[in-house]
C-alpha cells in the first residue's frame, strides 16, 4: 500500500494532463468523416469532437444507404418503390412507404406542378440517357400516367394503375440527409455536417453555426458565390446546370412541370432552400424553381429561406437572410424580398 500512496499523486497529475491533452487532441485531430453513396450521389458524414465518432458517422452512412436501398430508390430492385413500380401493387408490411407517400403528397398539395408520379416524364424525355424531345401524343400519355387518381392507398395496400410510376427524385436526398442527421442525434452527437450530393444537413448545439457555401451555378461543383451561417437545418438546391440536354439549340433541364409534362423553362438557374426539414427543403427547392418568385410566399408559409439565382446572375433572397448571406463574388447582386 506504500506503493499506492507514492503513485497516487503522480497519477492524479498525469490524469489531469491526460484530460487536457485529450481535449486538445480531439479538437486538433479534426473531424471524423465517413463516405458512402445514396440517391445517386455521394454521401459524406462529418462528426466533430465525439467519443466513438467513427462508429457513429459510419452508422449514419449505413442508415442513409439503407433508406435509399430498401425504400426510396426507383432503380434498385431491393427497394419497395422499385417493386411497387414494377408490379403496380405493394402490400407495405410496416407502412413506411405509405406514410412517406403521404408525407410527400402533403407537400405536393401546396404545389400542383409537382408530383411523386414523375417517373414517366423522366423516361419519355430520356433524362438518364442522352435526352430526347417526345411527341405531343407521348407527352399527353405521360400526363395521363401522372394523374393522381392512378395512385390508390388502402390501409397498407398501395396500387398504381394506368402506367403510373413513382420517383422520389425531388424529395429523396433531403429525406436521406435528414435520416443521417437523426441517426447522429440518436447517438448523442452534438455537432455534425452531412452532405448528400448538393443537399447539406447541419447539426449544431445551441449557439453554434456552421458556415455553408452557396454554389455558384456558373462554375463547377465546390465553387461558391456566397456563404450563410446555419445553426441547425437543411439546405437543398435545384438547378438546371447539372442534369440537362440540348437539342436544336434549346436547353432542357430535368425538372418537370407536372401540369405540362415538360421541363421547366424560366430565367432561373438555381434555387437553394434552407429549412428545418430535409424532405421539405428538397421539395421546396424544386417547387420554387418551377414557381419562381411567386414561390416566395410558399416558402415563408413553410418557414423556409430561399436564394434564387437567375441566369443573369441577379439573386433574389428571403428578407430573413439579410445580414447572414454574404457574397464572396462581385459578379452577383442580391435583392431581398
Amino acid at each position, binding site marked *: 500500500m506504500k506503493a499506492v500512496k507514492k503513485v497516487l499523486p503522480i497519477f492524479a497529475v498525469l490524469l489531469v494532463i491526460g484530460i487536457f491533452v485529450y481535449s486538445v487532441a480531439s479538437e486538433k485531430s479534426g473531424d471524423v468523416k465517413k463516405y458512402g453513396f445514396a440517391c445517386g450521389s455521394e454521401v459524406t458524414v462529418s462528426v466533430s469532437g465525439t*467519443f466513438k465518432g467513427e462508429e457513429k458517422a459510419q452508422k449514419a452512412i449505413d442508415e442513409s444507404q439503407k433508406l435509399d436501398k430498401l425504400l426510396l430508390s426507383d432503380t434498385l430492385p431491393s427497394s419497395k418503390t422499385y417493386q411497387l413500380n414494377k408490379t403496380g401493387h405493394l402490400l407495405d408490411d410496416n407502412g413506411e412507404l405509405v406514410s412517406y407517400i403521404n408525407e410527400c403528397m402533403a407537400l405536393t398539395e401546396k404545389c400542383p406542378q409537382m408530383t411523386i408520379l414523375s417517373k414517366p416524364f423522366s423516361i419519355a424525355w430520356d433524362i438518364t440517357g442522352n435526352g430526347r424531345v417526345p411527341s405531343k401524343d407521348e407527352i399527353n400519355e405521360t400526363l395521363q400516367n401522372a394523374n393522381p387518381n392512378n395512385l390508390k392507398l388502402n390501409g397498407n395496400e398501395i396500387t398504381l394503375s394506368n402506367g403510373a410510376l413513382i420517383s422520389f427524385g425531388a424529395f429523396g436526398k433531403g429525406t436521406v440527409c435528414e435520416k443521417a442527421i437523426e441517426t447522429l442525434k440518436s447517438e448523442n452527437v452534438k455537432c455534425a455536417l452531412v452532405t448528400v450530393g448538393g443537399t447539406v444537413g447541419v447539426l449544431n448545439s445551441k449557439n453554434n453555426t456552421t458556415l455553408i457555401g452557396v454554389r455558384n451555378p456558373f462554375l463547377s461543383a465546390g465553387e461558391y458565390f456566397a456563404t450563410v451561417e446555419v445553426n441547425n437545418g437543411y439546405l437543398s438546391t435545384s438547378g438546371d446546370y447539372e442534369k440537362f440536354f440540348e437539342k436544336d439549340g434549346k436547353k432542357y433541364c430535368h425538372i418537370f412541370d407536372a401540369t405540362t409534362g415538360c421541363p421547366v423553362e424560366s430565367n432561373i438557374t438555381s434555387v437553394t432552400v434552407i429549412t428545418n426539414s430535409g424532405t421539405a427543403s428538397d421539395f421546396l427547392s424544386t417547387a420554387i424553381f418551377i414557381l419562381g418568385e411567386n414561390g416566395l410566399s410558399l416558402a415563408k408559409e413553410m418557414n423556409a429561406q430561399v436564394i434564387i439565382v437567375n441566369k443573369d446572375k441577379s439573386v433574389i433572397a428571403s428578407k430573413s437572410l439579410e445580414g447572414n448571406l454574404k457574397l464572396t463574388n462581385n459578379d452577383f447582386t442580391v435583392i431581398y424580398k
Partner: protein
Amino acid sequence: MKQKQVAKLTVTALFTALSVVLSILEGFLPTFAVLPPGAKPGFSNIIVMFSALSLGAPQTLFIVFAKSFFAFLTRGVMAGCMSLAGGVLSSFCMLFVFRKLQNIGCVGAGVLSALCHNLGQLLVSFITVGTTAVFGYAPILLVVSVITGVITGSLLKAFLPYFKGLEKHFSKEMEK
C-alpha cells in the same frame, strides 16, 4: 541447478498463459476515438517486464512469441504482427534497461515498456499503410504510454513479491 531450470520453465509457462488471458481481457475494453484503433493499456506488459527482470531473455521472448501467435490465431495477421513488433521491441528494451540502468524504478520501466510496445505497433501500421499519416498518432501515444506505463509499473511493484515467491515456491516443491 536443474530444479531451478524446471522452476523457471514452469513459471514461464504460467506467465505465457497469464499473458494470453490478459490479452483476451483487454480485448473487451472499448476503444477511444482519438487513439489509433487497437491501443490498449497493455497489462500483459507487466508479465514481459517481470520476465525480463527475473527470468531472462529466452523466456521473455518465448512469452512474447506465444502471445503474438495467439493474437494471430484469434484476431488475424495484423493483430499478430502488431503484438509481435510491440512485444519484441519492449522485451529488448526491458532486457537492456534492467542490465544497464540498474537503478530504474518500476514506474520508469513501465513507461518505457509501454512506449516501446506502442512504437512497435506504430511501425507495423506505417509499414502496412505506407503513408506517414499514422505518425499523427505519435504525440497522443507518447502521453498515453506514460499513463499506462505508470499503471503497469505500479502493478508490477505491487505483485513483485508474489512473482518472486512463485519461483522460490516451485524450486522448493522440486526439492521435496
